[in-house]
């Protein structure tokens, strides 16, 4: 149901993953995940090593933060993130590249995992693993299935249905074995018979590679998916793989499913088998007008400007927008001096013509937004209701079911900023509900 077919633009598909050098200055945000910020446990003047814990998860919904570099802590104070919001942060002056001794830096691949499920979950927490699909949900909470609920399916999201993004694809092509080990570990943590890796069928090479590798493992099934955005949205993916539907307001675990991103599986391998905390992102540097396309392993905390400088020198003069994420759900970066955080998947540079929005015209009630909506909602209606501040009615029309995939705005011939209006409406509905409590 619903869905659209944006131009795929996977122009960085064939760029092998490179390692980006460590910058001289590093700012590590304490809020790199869904939930409360981690509490800094270092002070000015402290020496830190790569992989050392510098922010501790003290709240329930929180994740540990580790130093991605070695050096001296310069200060601990708020820093503006890529979208202009001030977040608590640790500033580190980089000195050398000295790693914690506990981290296994050898290239050997370790398949055996002797940990018990409980130990795996504890280690995920210790290593600061969060979901890398976009929501950065702390993994130790997701894999600690609440009492009374039972996981039956583990689904690994490798759909990568967003235009431009290729980091998951590259990981599959270059690290298929590590990914499968990571998936096996997660499968063990949940105690489910099978794990399904969902890949859109426009990536036949990745499907072939993963299918071949999965044969060597027990209970890993590669599931080719129909090419359609948003195939990788959680509810749509669960539906495509299991035929189950997560009802409105419910979580995947309510229908016996746990979904993790492919990149998460890779970082789980590194965390469990190599003792390496989540200190690196694999991200795509791409754009139609860029001189070259790249996929990088980047230390978390490297700024957007550092990444741009190293990969392409400087932004083309006609740059209109820099996006963190894909073109459908990514966020426009406000502040290029900001550090990257866990879960960043791309630095996508859009040309000014590509980034321009066309002027809005009158709604002709064509219903394209409605047919494109994967949740079966009526976006045109939300536009009218939100503009007229009819928030109660917007709630009755299930505005909160919207997953903000952008299909409505994408397909609207009148260029109505439907997704913007729905986001505004959702916030107003939530505010109204909070006020009533």
């Amino acid at each position: 149901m619903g869905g659209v077919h944006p131009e795929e633009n996977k122009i960085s598909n064939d760029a092998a993953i490179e390692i980006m050098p460590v910058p001289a200055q590093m700012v590590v945000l304490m809020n790199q995940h869904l939930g409360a910020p981690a509490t800094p446990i270092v002070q000015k003047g402290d020496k830190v090593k790569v992989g050392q814990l510098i922010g501790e998860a003290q709240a329930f919904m929180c994740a540990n933060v580790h130093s991605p570099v070695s050096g001296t802590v310069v200060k601990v104070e708020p820093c503006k993130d890529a979208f202009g919001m001030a977040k608590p942060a640790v500033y580190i002056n980089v000195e050398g590249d000295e790693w914690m001794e506990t981290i296994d830096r050898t290239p050997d691949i370790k398949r055996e995992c002797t940990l018990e499920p409980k130990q795996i979950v504890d280690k995920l927490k210790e290593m600061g693993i969060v979901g890398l699909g976009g929501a950065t949900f702390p993994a130790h909470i997701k894999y600690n299935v609440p009492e009374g609920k039972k996981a039956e399916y583990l689904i690994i999201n490798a759909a990568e249905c967003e235009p431009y993004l290729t980091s998951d694809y590259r990981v599959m092509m270059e690290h298929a074995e590590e990914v499968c080990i990571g998936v096996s570990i997660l499968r063990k943590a949940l105690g489910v018979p099978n794990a399904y890796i969902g890949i859109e069928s426009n990536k036949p090479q990745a499907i072939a590679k993963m299918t071949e590798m999965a044969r060597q493992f027990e209970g890993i099934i590669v599931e080719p998916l129909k090419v359609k955005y948003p195939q990788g949205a959680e509810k749509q993916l669960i539906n495509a793989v299991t035929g189950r539907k997560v009802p409105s307001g419910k979580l995947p675990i309510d229908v016996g499913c746990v979904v993790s991103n492919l990149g998460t599986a890779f970082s789980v391998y590194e965390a469990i088998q190599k003792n390496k905390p989540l200190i690196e992102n694999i991200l795509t540097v791409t754009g139609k007008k860029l001189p070259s396309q790249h996929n990088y392993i980047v230390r978390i905390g490297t700024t957007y400007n550092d990444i741009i400088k190293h990969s392409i020198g400087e932004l083309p003069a006609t740059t209109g927008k820099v996006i963190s994420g894909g073109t459908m759900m990514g966020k426009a970066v406000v502040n290029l001096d900001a550090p990257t955080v866990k879960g960043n998947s791309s630095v996508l540079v859009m040309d000014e013509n590509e980034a321009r929005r066309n002027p809005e015209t009158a709604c002709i009630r064509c219903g394209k937004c409605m047919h494109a909506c994967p949740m079966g909602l009526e976006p045109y209606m939300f536009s009218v209701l939100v503009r007229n501040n009819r928030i109660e009615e917007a709630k009755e029309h299930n505005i909160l079911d919207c997953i903000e995939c952008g299909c409505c705005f994408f397909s609207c011939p009148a260029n109505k900023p439907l997704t913007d209006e729905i986001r505004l409406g959702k916030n107003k509905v939530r505010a109204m509900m909070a006020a009533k409590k």
Partner: protein
Amino acid sequence: MNLLNISGSPHVHSDESTKRIMWRVNMALIPALLVAIAYFGVTALLISVISVLSCVLFQWLIEKYIMKVPSTICDGSAIVTGLLLAFNVPATASMLWIVVIGALVAIGVGKMAFGGLGKNPFNPALVGRVFLLISFPVQMTTWPDVSKVQFFGLDTVTGPTPLGLLKERGAEALDQLPQAWDMFIGHIGGSFGEVSALAILLGAAYLCWKKIISWHIPVTFIGTAFVFSAILWLVNPVHVEAVDGVKQLVGYIDPLTTILTGGIMLGACFMATDMVTSPMSKSGQLIFGVGCGLLTVIIRTWGAYPEGVSFAILLMNSVTPLINRWCKPKRFAN
């Protein structure tokens, strides 16, 4: 360093626009226009040009001097209205000026009075057409004889339409009915844009291919008219009978003649599918199409007019908001 744009997602667009949709509809109307010119001569072309120019001019004037808003004539919607209005009148010389009045009503009352494109509850071209039908009943039902048209001549020999013949119930009507093939290619009397089912279906196929219309309304509209008239025909097929000593036509016409004559093809493919005035959901469109088909046959069979497509569509337009309210899309997992 230049400033970066900031906006919410999504950051790309499908490139679909109202303008492109309207121009594609105009493209789809070209086959019917060409057939009309071939059968009815330059009169058909002149009426079309006058109708289109009047619609565009009236919209420009109203937007500039009454509504005081930026002009939207470039979006091509006034041209669609102009063409459809022209297609719904006979190709006679008097239409050259009457169609201007129709254009004023279509654009002024049918569209701009409600706030312009997207806000009108009724199909503007049909509002204009029905206004003309009521105001100029003689001129609007005087049809040129398609077999006697001179290409460049404005003087026309009048002739009957198949539905007009049947409505008069003369005993000789049966022999004068055109063959099915003539009806299909459009070599029959009628409003000049509606005669050729072939040309209209060509245009409709193009619109389906470009995903501007879907099959739901045309198929249910034509299908319902076909099935409903087939039932009537099977119960009592049209035949000549002596009533009080006078031979006259009784019974109901066959379903093929029903769907190939009058405005059913044009109405079902181009006017009932108007995005603004038809339901949005597929289920709603099915109801809409069935309603149009039923009403058309009812009006034709038991009403005063030989033709009922315009009224059927306008009546269904009026219940579109109700259908929209009733036929919601199916929510995910509900």
